[in-house]
C-alpha cells in the first residue's frame, strides 16, 4: 500500500517543485539574455551568442531573416543600404517586384541558397551592418550576458541610493523592533502586575486592525510632523515595538525557568539588569527570528514607501523597481527588468539560506502557538 504510493508522492512533489522554481529560473535566464533573444519567438531556454566570419574576422552578430532560395545582394538606387532580393525577380540591372514598376539596382553579390543549405541575413552587433553568410558558417554557443546587470543598475538610475535607503530603513526597523519589542515582551512575560493581562489582550486585538483604517490618520500625523517625503515614517514606528514581535518574544520569554531570574533577584539584581544580562542572552534564537521577519517586512514593503515617499531620489528598491517598470516604454527591455528583479530578490534568498532554520521555526511558531 505505502510502497505503491511512494513514486506518486515523489512525482507530485517534483512536479510541484519544478513549477515553483520555474519563475525564478525564467527570471534569471531572461536577465542573462540580450534583448532581441528575450523577445524572440519561440523562446530559446538559454542565452546564445552567434558568431560569423565577416571580413576575415569572427564577430558577434544577430541573426535575422533566413534566405532559402537563390538571391542577390543589391544596392538600390537612391539608397546606400544593401538589400537581399530574390534572384528570380532580378534581371537587366533592375528589380521587378510582383507589383509595381521595375526599379534600377546594382547587383553586388549572388547567394546560391536552397532550403537544404540556407543562408542567413545577419546584423553585426557592433556596426549595425547587414550581411549574408551561409547558415553553416554561423556558430552559436551559450553565453550569459552578465553585463545586463550593470546595465539594469544604470537604467534604474539611482539604484545605489535606493539600495542605501532600503538598507537604512531595514536596519533601523530591525534595531527598533528587536530592542523595543524585547523590553515590552519582558514586561508582559516576566513581571506580574495588575492589568497586565488585559493590556496584553488589547495588544493582541490591535493585530486585527486592518491597515487601511489607520492609513489616512497616520499619513496626516506624519505630514503634520513634516516627515512625509522622508524615510522617517517607514521606521519611526518600529521603535515603539510591534504587536506581532511582542507576542512572539513573550511566548519565548515565558519558557525560561523562573528560578533563573529569582536567583538573580535575590542577588540584588535590578529588573532591567535581569532582563539585559540573564533573559536576553538566553533568547537569542527568538530575537534572530524577530529580526529576520522585520528585515524582510521592511525590504518587501511596497505600500508604505508608495504612500510616504514623494521624491524619486528617496525611493526604496521596491518602489524604484516599480518606477523602472513604468518608465520602460512597452515591454522592450525585459532582460533589464528581470536583472533588476533578480537583484531585489537575491538578498532575500541569500538571507533565507543563511538562516533557514530560524525562518522555518519562526513561521511554525506563529501558527501553532496562536
Amino acid at each position: 500500500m505505502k510502497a505503491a504510493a511512494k513514486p506518486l508522492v515523489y512525482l507530485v512533489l517534483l512536479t510541484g517543485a519544478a513549477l515553483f522554481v520555474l519563475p525564478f529560473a525564467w527570471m534569471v535566464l531572461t536577465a542573462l539574455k540580450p534583448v532581441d533573444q528575450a523577445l524572440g519567438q519561440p523562446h530559446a531556454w538559454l542565452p546564445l551568442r552567434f558568431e560569423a566570419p565577416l571580413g576575415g574576422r569572427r564577430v558577434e552578430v544577430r541573426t535575422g531573416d533566413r534566405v532559402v532560395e537563390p538571391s542577390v545582394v543589391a544596392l538600390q538606387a537612391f539608397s546606400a543600404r544593401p538589400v537581399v532580393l530574390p534572384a528570380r525577380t532580378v534581371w537587366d540591372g533592375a528589380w521587378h517586384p510582383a507589383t509595381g514598376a521595375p526599379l534600377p539596382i546594382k547587383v553586388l553579390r549572388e547567394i546560391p541558397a536552397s532550403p537544404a543549405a540556407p543562408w542567413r541575413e545577419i546584423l553585426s552587433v557592433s556596426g549595425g551592418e547587414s550581411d549574408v553568410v551561409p547558415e553553416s558558417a554561423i556558430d552559436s554557443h551559450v553565453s550569459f550576458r552578465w553585463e545586463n546587470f550593470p546595465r539594469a543598475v544604470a537604467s534604474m538610475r539611482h539604484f545605489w541610493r535606493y539600495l542605501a535607503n532600503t538598507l537604512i530603513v531595514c536596519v533601523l526597523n530591525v534595531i527598533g523592533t528587536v530592542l523595543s519589542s524585547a523590553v515590552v515582551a519582558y514586561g508582559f512575560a516576566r513581571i506580574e502586575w495588575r492589568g497586565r493581562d488585559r493590556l496584553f489582550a488589547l495588544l493582541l486585538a490591535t493585530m486585527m486592525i486592518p491597515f487601511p483604517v489607520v492609513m489616512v490618520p497616520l499619513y496626516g500625523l506624519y505630514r503634520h510632523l513634516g516627515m512625509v517625503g522622508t524615510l522617517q515614517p517607514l521606521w519611526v514606528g518600529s521603535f515603539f515595538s510591534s504587536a506581532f514581535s511582542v507576542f512572539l518574544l513573550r511566548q519565548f520569554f515565558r519558557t525560561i525557568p523562573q528560578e533563573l531570574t529569582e536567583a538573580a533577584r535575590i542577588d540584588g539584581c535590578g529588573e532591567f539588569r535581569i532582563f539585559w544580562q540573564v533573559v536576553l542572552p538566553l533568547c537569542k534564537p527568538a530575537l534572530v527570528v524577530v529580526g529576520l521577519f522585520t528585515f524582510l517586512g521592511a525590504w518587501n514593503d511596497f505600500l508604505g514607501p508608495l504612500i510616504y515617499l514623494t521624491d524619486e531620489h528617496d525611493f526604496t528598491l521596491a518602489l524604484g523597481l516599480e518606477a523602472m517598470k513604468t518608465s520602460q516604454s512597452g515591454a522592450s527591455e525585459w532582460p533589464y527588468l528581470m536583472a533588476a528583479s533578480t537583484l531585489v530578490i537575491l538578498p532575500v534568498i541569500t538571507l533565507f539560506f543563511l538562516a533557514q532554520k530560524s525562518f522555518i521555526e519562526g513561521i511554525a511558531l506563529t501558527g501553532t502557538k496562536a
Partner: protein
Amino acid sequence: MKTGEARRTALGLAFTSPWIVGFAAFTLFPVCASVYYSFCDYDVLSRPVWVGLLNYQDMVTDRVFWQSVSNTLVFNLMALPIGLVSALALALLLNEPVRLRGVFRAVYYLPSLVPAVAGAMVWLWILNSRLGLLNQALEALGVSSPPQWLTDPAWTKPSLALVSLWGCGNTVVIYLAALQGVPRSLLEAAMIDGASPWKRLVHVTLPAISPVIYFNLLIGIIGGLQVFSAAFVMMGGAGPERSVLFYAIYIYQNAFEYRHMGYASAMAWMLCLLIMALTWVASRLARGFVHYPSE
C-alpha cells in the same frame, strides 16, 4: 506587600511603556481620528469639514465601490480555497518520510519571501500574452488562442490567483508544523484498527490539525480582503475594465489619488466590518469541525 505590588505595577508599566506610547500614537489616535474623518470631507491640506453620514451614503450609490467589493470577494473565492487546499496537500506530502524533504520545503517556501513588486515583475513577464512563457508553452501544446492573462478582464483575477498560489509556502510550513504535532499514538491506533490512509486522514489527522486550518482560514480572510501590491503593480491600479480594482486599491486611490480622505476612511471602516462579518461566519462554520485538544 502593598508597596511590592505598586512597585511591580510601576515596573510592568515602565517595561511596556514603549508599546503603550506607540499604541496611543500609532493605533488609538489614528483609529479615533479615522472614525471622525469618516464623517467628514477631508483632503489633508485643509481642516476636515463635518458632513454627517454623507460618505456612507455615497458608498451605497458608488458603482465603482460595489465593483471593488465584488472583485475582492470573487478573487478570494478563487484564491483562498485553492491556496488553503494546495498548501494542505503539499504539507501532507512533505510530512511523508521523503528524501530531500528540506530541499522541497525550501523550494516551496522561498516564493513566499519574494518582494511583491519583484514577484509581480516576474509574473508580468511569464503571463505576457504574446511573448510570455506560459502562452508560448500553451501554443506549443496546440492551444491556438491562449488567454490574454493580463488584458482580458475575464482572466485577470485567475492570473492574480495563480500569483498568490505561488506564494502559499508560508501556509505550507504552518501546516507542516501542525502535522508534526499530530499524536503518533492516535495514528498507530487507527492503523492497528485497520483504518485506510484516507480514513486516517479524515478521522485522525484533519481533526487534530483543525485549529491550524481554522487559523490559516482566518489569516487568509483578513489578508485576502486587503490584497493590494501584486494587483497594483501588475495591472497598474485597476486593470482592464477595473477587473482587479480591489477594495484596498480603491481605498488607496480615494485617499492618495483623489484626496477623498474622508471617503477613504469610511470605506476602511466598512472593510473592518466586512472582515468582522466574514470571520464571524468562519467561526460559526468552524464550530462544527474544529477540535481543540483537551488539556
